[in-house]
């Protein structure tokens, strides 16, 4: 029971109180680039959820069963990136063979998020916070959901803004960053609710 409440707390904290995008400002580039329409951001969001959950679990195994026994902990940055890139490539190939619709929905976004810093960020946070295997997976999954929530809300807002007269100098990334800032202000309200 205690382990279960701990996992639930981590899950909700990763979505709301410690939203990887709005409190750590990680994964900003694809957030700014692919948030123009709700449809595409659903695809990208799903790909991020999937990749984050599995790479954080995979990297946990790699770190504690390969790097630590071999005293190579200082190589974790490089190894994590390689693991993420390899995982994304393999999954992309498998999806392409197995399911055509899923590939069309996710496939094009998978290479994009190989270089998403939020994915690496999640892997590094799980080490700093000394998570167990199950906690790492849940944390990765929750962070992905939180990231998806943020990009979906942003896409909804930007779709709604198509006819807005934004000042010339602020069009595009400028106004998007300001919106992200106001979103982060609203998310500040959750702070202190769940501690991880």
């Amino acid at each position, binding site marked *: 029971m205690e382990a279960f409440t701990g996992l639930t707390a981590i899950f909700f904290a990763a979505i709301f109180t410690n939203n990887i995008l709005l409190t750590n400002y990680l994964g900003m580039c694809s957030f700014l680039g692919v948030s123009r329409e*709700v449809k595409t951001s659903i695809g990208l969001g799903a790909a991020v959820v999937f990749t984050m959950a599995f790479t954080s679990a995979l990297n946990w195994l790699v770190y504690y069963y390969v790097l630590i026994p071999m005293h190579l902990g200082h190589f974790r940055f490089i190894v994590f990136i390689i693991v993420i890139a390899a995982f994304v490539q393999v999954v992309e190939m498998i999806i392409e063979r197995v399911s055509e619709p899923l590939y069309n929905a996710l496939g094009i976004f998978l290479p994009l998020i190989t270089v998403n810093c939020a994915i690496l960020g999640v892997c590094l946070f799980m080490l700093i916070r000394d998570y167990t295997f199950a906690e790492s997976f849940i944390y990765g999954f929750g962070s992905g959901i939180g990231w998806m929530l943020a990009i*979906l*809300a942003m*896409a*909804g*807002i930007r*779709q*709604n*803004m198509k*006819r*807005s*007269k*934004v*000042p010339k100098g*602020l069009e595009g990334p400028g*106004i998007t960053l*300001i*919106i992200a800032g*106001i*979103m982060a*202000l*609203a*998310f*500040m*309200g*959750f*702070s*202190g*609710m*769940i501690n991880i």
Partner: protein
Amino acid sequence: MKLIKNILHSVRPLFEEGGKLRAMLPVYQAADNFFFSHVEETTCAPYGRDPIDIKRYMTLVIVALMPAFLASLYFFGPRVLLLMLVSYVAGGLIEVLFAIVRKEEINEGFLVTGFIFPLILPPGIPLWMVALGSIFGVLVGKEIFGGTGRNLFNAALVGRCFLAFAYPARMTATWIAPGPEKWLQLPGSLAASAPDAVTLATPLGLAKSGVMTAPLDLLVGNISGCVGETSALAILIGGVILLLTGVANWRTMAGGMASMTLLAWVLNLIWPAQVAPPGFQLLAGGWMFGIVFMATDPVTGPATLSAKWAYGILIGTLTVLIRSYSGFVEGTMFAILFGNICAPLMDEVVIRLRIRRCAAERACS
């Protein structure tokens, strides 16, 4: 009135094409509109069923705000007028600047924002903070998104949120004990830190340490808190005006009230020490003001009817959760801002579902 008309008429050439003050035309139009409503009668079909426009919309909101405003004048004294003046002048300046640059008319949207903003601030707040918050709210919350009708977030809330994080100590320590005697202590009671002003914690703050305020005080408004949120009764009268005139949609209010009552009731049964009972939650703090005047804003809320329900429910739920479990005493501001963020997405989901249902029905028939 005739005098004003003559003055306006005599200066008109200055603002027309080729006049010296052409760039200031929006100022002239605003003055003209303020005194003499611009009436153009239709002479042929189609006829408007009801000529409601931004001006009438906003005027009705101001009328609905009047009871709360009068209550705040009674409880917090003449300083309220000073706050309002500063809010209007500072925010209005930005509004006028943008109208001149954009060569648009100054419209009535700011009337409500400028009126609401001081009402959601602590009564003892320094005047420069009111000006700063009003400017930030209008500039970042509204004008850069394209002005009235295009703002994504409630401009007054953006300004307040900015102040709450930029000056947390000043925003949580400037509560003044209510009482009509402030009218007799002029001009001393106008100052931010009047020597004989008594500070008093808000009901929500007191509840955190286990002291519950009497429900009657909460209802009438004899409590400490933000300027306009003091009297729940006055706000409710305003809410009835909004609903009767059709300016606000009842779904948001109903969803918010119902979800707050239900959630607070359930959580209060389980954790009575942490979560206040529903009656207290409904009457205390900024909830009543927020759900009646800010959540029902047609611009920042969702447009579809079922999304309005969801929007109200989301705001009610988040308010209870933030109040009870987060580090903040009050959660209405965050909850409504969060609702503003999600509103376009809610609309999108509702519309998609409807399209899918229509497509399915067509496929069957």
